[in-house]
């Protein structure tokens, strides 16, 4: 009897809840997880180095007012990004385009301010080769800036898609995923700002 029970063991379990998560969402979070490791390692090393190096003297030369303004810009761009998603969910095409455009523009403002900071600092004689603090400063903000540029490119592609009236399910998903990335770049800055400008 038990032998036949073995042959006929055809349990039919329902699929587990992992199937309910959109594939793209797992993918984007995995990508962010590896990004956490990259930025986290850089920031962690910076913090550890800060105990054995004198970062305060060099740190006094960064333009914290500009940094604070940039934080405001990036936080606001996070709002416009999420509002773009909310608009897309309501199928409001005008608002979706408007908020995407605002996000892109705020991204450019951030880069512009950052560029201005870089030029002023380099004019004052602080380059990546000046010292350990500046190595970290340019390394980390540079890498973050590259991520901002990447985000702007993605948002521009979406903006074009929204302008060319792609179907809503196409737009919604992609705006959500692009948003996850954009907010992550914002979160990185939320930590970079106090790390480099305020301590």
């Amino acid at each position: 009897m038990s032998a036949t029970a073995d042959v006929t063991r055809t349990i039919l379990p329902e699929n587990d809840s992992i199937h309910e998560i959109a594939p793209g969402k797992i993918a984007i979070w995995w990508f962010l997880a590896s990004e956490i490791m990259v930025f986290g390692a850089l920031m962690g090393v910076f913090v550890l180095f800060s105990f054995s190096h004198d970062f305060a003297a060099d740190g006094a030369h960064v333009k914290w007012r500009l940094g604070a303004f940039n934080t405001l810009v990036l936080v606001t761009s996070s709002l416009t990004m999420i509002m773009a998603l909310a608009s897309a969910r309501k199928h409001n095409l005008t608002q979706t385009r408007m908020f995407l455009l605002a996000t892109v523009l705020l991204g450019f403002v951030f880069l512009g301010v950052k560029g201005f900071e870089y030029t002023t600092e380099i004019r004052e004689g602080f380059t990546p080769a000046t010292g350990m603090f500046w190595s970290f400063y340019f390394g980390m903000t540079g890498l973050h800036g590259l991520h901002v540029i990447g985000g702007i490119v993605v948002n521009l592609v979406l903006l074009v898609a929204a302008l060319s009236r792609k179907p809503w399910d196409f737009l919604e998903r992609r705006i959500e995923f692009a948003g996850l990335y954009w907010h992550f770049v914002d979160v990185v800055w939320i930590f970079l700002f106090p790390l480099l400008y305020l301590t």
Partner: protein
Amino acid sequence: MSHGTLESVPADNESRLYVIVWALLVVLLIVGLAIFILPIPREAAVALIFAVAAVKATLVLRNYMHLKHEHLLIYIIVAVPALFLVGFAITLIPDIVFRHGG
């Protein structure tokens, strides 16, 4: 699409929540700057500033990145690297901070 659970949140409340979160973020930014400017002992100021940053990050993660609606798997994906990083950094303290033999 059947994926995700966010669709269940009413659309109007959603937008209002996002603006409120933004306002909170701006307030926290000002709080952080205030701590920086006010004559608070450096160690305390640093701790406070990072506490504020952590709150800000949590706000963004939970609300803008919808972490509060997500499947357990997504939490694991975020938590595991964070834990590894903390462990990694702690292990490096004797070598990088105190520089054994340095």
